[in-house]
């Protein structure tokens, strides 16, 4: 820095954020178990989420075995099948995707990308993980109680979820609801941290409009979660009371097994409204971090600034706001007032505008970029393809007249797996390949990564494309077996068998990924601090992996936005965010 004539700190206002009190434990347990370091908590969150996610992956494999080869496997009976459907959905949506994006990537990346030492409330952050772990353990416990887990579908609709005859209607549903309540409590502790850190603890010079889009996506998703999870919390409590105390919030007068039950006057549709007031923002809680991460992956690996940064930010905000007024498009066939359908169909189609805008911007960022087809970039491009596919079928389902015949068919399954399962998971893989060098200091194996990408990407298409066709045939979802149904042709069974083979293939292929993760941790090529030549602050830390406190003695000062790639006249094709203005080129420095 010598030879620079100007005072570089003059470009950033004086420090307003006080130096954070960090607690540096000395013992192994203090450092890695009861850790208050956001980076360790992030890894704890991620490993727990991936662990429970593997359970859900295995469950989906068992479901596919039954669907592809009915009457072959005697250990799968109809109630077990319904239980697998339920737990697969609930684990994947809440315990894997939400926890991994916000608890995992949020904890790791927010302090580093904002230029903070740690989350603002490290103790609360630690509690957040342990309450999440408790929620996961309660969920796992429900596999082992009498009657097993609940089999009411991941939406847990009453009355059937708490009536005799549904699998797990005694213990299973109670543990499910208690686990959800704990998840929400734990998440709230973490979520408050993420929001306050982004709003109140950024580095000097880091304005909101200089934040990488990853942080924007996670930040907005956290706001959605803090406002949407309350509805789920309340409906969980009300259903618990209906089940244990015999209240009638969601239960109308009802006959079960020939007997009049004590319930009277409740509203099952109320549950659906509360559930989907949570459930639809939940889609964007998963999607927005994926949008943000993929924007950064595309920009970094195309060596080009993100196209329309401000538009991207406002699109994230618009999607977040709109996501609260579209929930009843999940309820067109619930028997609610048809006029609601008109309103919710309109808002649903409006949300396609900011979403399509983001897709155009990703494509325009790629256009004439200096694209490096690294593994993260492959996953990012795969995401754009898959998301367009899933988004287009969303236009079908958002319209009432088209949705009604397609409701509860495999078309719906194909749609939401494309848009909400495969797309975010591709981003998660891309993000792991991208940030693994920062987390461990070693690169993941490139050949294995490329094999993993192509097998997963093509494999998922082999799974979900045929499902659209099954849906048009009218094959209903959540059925244990089709039996002899006139309108379903014989060939549907052949399609189902091929889907199962593809699904098992994709499931087994993930072992390559885990092998890569473990072996590269010990034998991977050393990565250095900034292997992708990226501008954002997490790549500028003095140590890799970053130590507790992230940035060594001095916090970074930010002089520019996160997307200075291929700037004309600069020596390198990237300029880190913390590089002072006069030092963009060696020539400038020599001239002085």
């Amino acid at each position: 820095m010598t030879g620079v004539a100007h005072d570089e700190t003059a470009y950033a206002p004086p420090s307003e954020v006080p130096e954070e009190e960090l607690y540096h434990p000395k013992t192994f347990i203090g450092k890695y178990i009861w850790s208050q370091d956001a980076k360790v908590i992030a890894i704890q969150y991620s490993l727990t989420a991936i662990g429970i996610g593997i359970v859900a992956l295995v469950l989906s494999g068992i479901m596919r075995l039954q669907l592809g080869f009915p009457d072959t496997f005697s250990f799968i009976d109809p109630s077990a099948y319904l239980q697998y459907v339920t737990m697969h959905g609930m684990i994947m949506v809440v315990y894997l995707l939400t926890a991994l994006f916000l608890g995992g990537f949020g904890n790791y990346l927010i302090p580093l990308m904002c230029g903070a030492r740690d989350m603002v409330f490290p103790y609360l952050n630690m509690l957040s993980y342990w309450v999440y772990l408790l929620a996961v353990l309660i969920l796992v416990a429900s596999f082992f109680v009498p009657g097993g887990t609940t089999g009411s579908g991941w939406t847990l609709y009453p009355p059937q979820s708490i009536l005799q005859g549904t699998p797990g209607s005694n213990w299973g549903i109670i543990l499910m609801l208690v686990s959800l309540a704990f998840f929400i409590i734990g998440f709230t502790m973490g979520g408050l941290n993420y929001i306050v850190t982004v709003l109140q603890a950024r580095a000097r010079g880091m304005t909101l409009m200089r934040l990488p889009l990853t942080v924007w996506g996670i930040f907005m998703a956290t706001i959605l979660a803090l406002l949407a999870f309350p509805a789920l919390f309340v409906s969980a409590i009300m259903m618990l009371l209906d089940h244990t105390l015999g209240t009638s919030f969601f239960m109308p007068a009802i006959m079960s097994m020939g007997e009049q039950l004590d319930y009277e006057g409740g509203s099952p549709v109320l549950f659906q409204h509360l559930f989907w007031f949570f459930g639809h923002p939940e889609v964007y809680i998963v999607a927005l971090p994926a949008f943000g991460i993929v924007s950064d992956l595309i920009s970094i690996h195309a060596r080009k600034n993100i196209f329309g940064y401000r538009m991207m930010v406002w699109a994230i905000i618009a999607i977040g706001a709109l996501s609260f007024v579209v929930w009843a498009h999940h309820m067109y066939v619930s028997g609610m007032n048809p006029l609601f359908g008109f309103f919710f169909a309109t808002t649903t189609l409006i949300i396609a505008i900011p979403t399509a805008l983001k897709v155009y911007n990703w494509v325009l960022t790629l256009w004439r970029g200096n694209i490096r087809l690294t593994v993260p970039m492959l996953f990012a491009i795969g995401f754009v393809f898959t998301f367009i596919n899933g988004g287009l079928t969303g236009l079908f389902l958002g319209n009432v007249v088209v949705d009604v015949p397609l409701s509860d068919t495999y078309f719906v399954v194909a749609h939401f797996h494309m848009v909400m399962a495969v797309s975010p998971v591709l981003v998660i893989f891309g993000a792991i390949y991208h940030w693994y060098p920062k987390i461990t200091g070693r690169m993941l194996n490139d050949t294995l990564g490329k094999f993993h990408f192509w097998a997963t990407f093509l494999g998922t298409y082999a799974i979900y494309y045929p499902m659209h066709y099954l849906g048009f045939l009218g094959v209903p979802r959540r059925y244990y077996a089709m039996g002899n149904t006139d309108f379903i042709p014989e060939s549907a069974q052949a399609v189902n068998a091929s889907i199962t083979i593809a699904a098992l293939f994709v499931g087994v292929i993930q072992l390559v990924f885990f092998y890569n993760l473990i072996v590269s941790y010990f034998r991977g090529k050393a990565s250095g601090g900034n292997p992708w030549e990226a501008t954002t602050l997490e790549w500028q830390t003095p140590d890799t992996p970053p130590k507790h406190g992230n940035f060594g003695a001095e916090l970074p000062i930010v002089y520019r936005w996160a997307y200075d790639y291929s700037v004309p006249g600069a020596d390198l094709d990237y300029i880190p965010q913390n590089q002072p203005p006069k030092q963009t080129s060696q020539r400038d420095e020599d001239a002085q």
Partner: protein
Amino acid sequence: MSTQVPGNPEDFPNDGLESLVADWASDQKTFKNVSWGKAMMWIFLLSDTFIFTSFLTGYMTVRMSTTVPWPNSSEVFALTIAGNHIPLLLIAIMTFILISSSGTMAMAVKFGYEKNRKVCGILMLITAAFGASFVGMQIFEWTKLIVEEGVRPWGNPMGAAQFGSTFFMITGFHGVHVSIGVIFLVIVAVKVLRGSIELGRPGFLTGRKGNYGMVETMGLYWHFVDLVWVFIFAFFYLW
């Protein structure tokens, strides 16, 4: 865009819409002069608002969907004192006490910032005592409803079963909020009175030092619990 200089805060206007824009466009902190704890409490309260809104919406929905008439709440919640039948008497007293406690809490915040730790701590203890007496009266109210009127979560002799279920659920959830508030008020009051803030003593759980901002953060929570009570009072007892 790439190398813009974030503006010098002194150049920005101090009030009006422009200062709002300036704050959101600035670096480091969006809400200037707002501590982390205070920002966190505001956001938590926003989230908690959604919880109570969901509860009250659920209550209104079942009140409309139930097929049985709703009990007359001013009759159910009447007390007979010295032969006089006074509707909503207990609730009026409870509301008065809770709103008074907001007053003492606000004074505690003021004395806290003046570093008058004795008065601040004592006012917090008075607030806690008001809160505890509120919870005590709520226990009395519940006991009377359960034992004398025969109201149960699953049914009651006066009308719709949802009357009891929503009442116990919503007031119970609010009562839990008040009780948690009382516990934390006592903890912070003891911390203030012992002078732990002046001495910079590390906290028992978090191992971090406190400051008088804690009193205000605590106060935000307490005022919120009061405000929620006003809505419960209006929607449940007056409707």
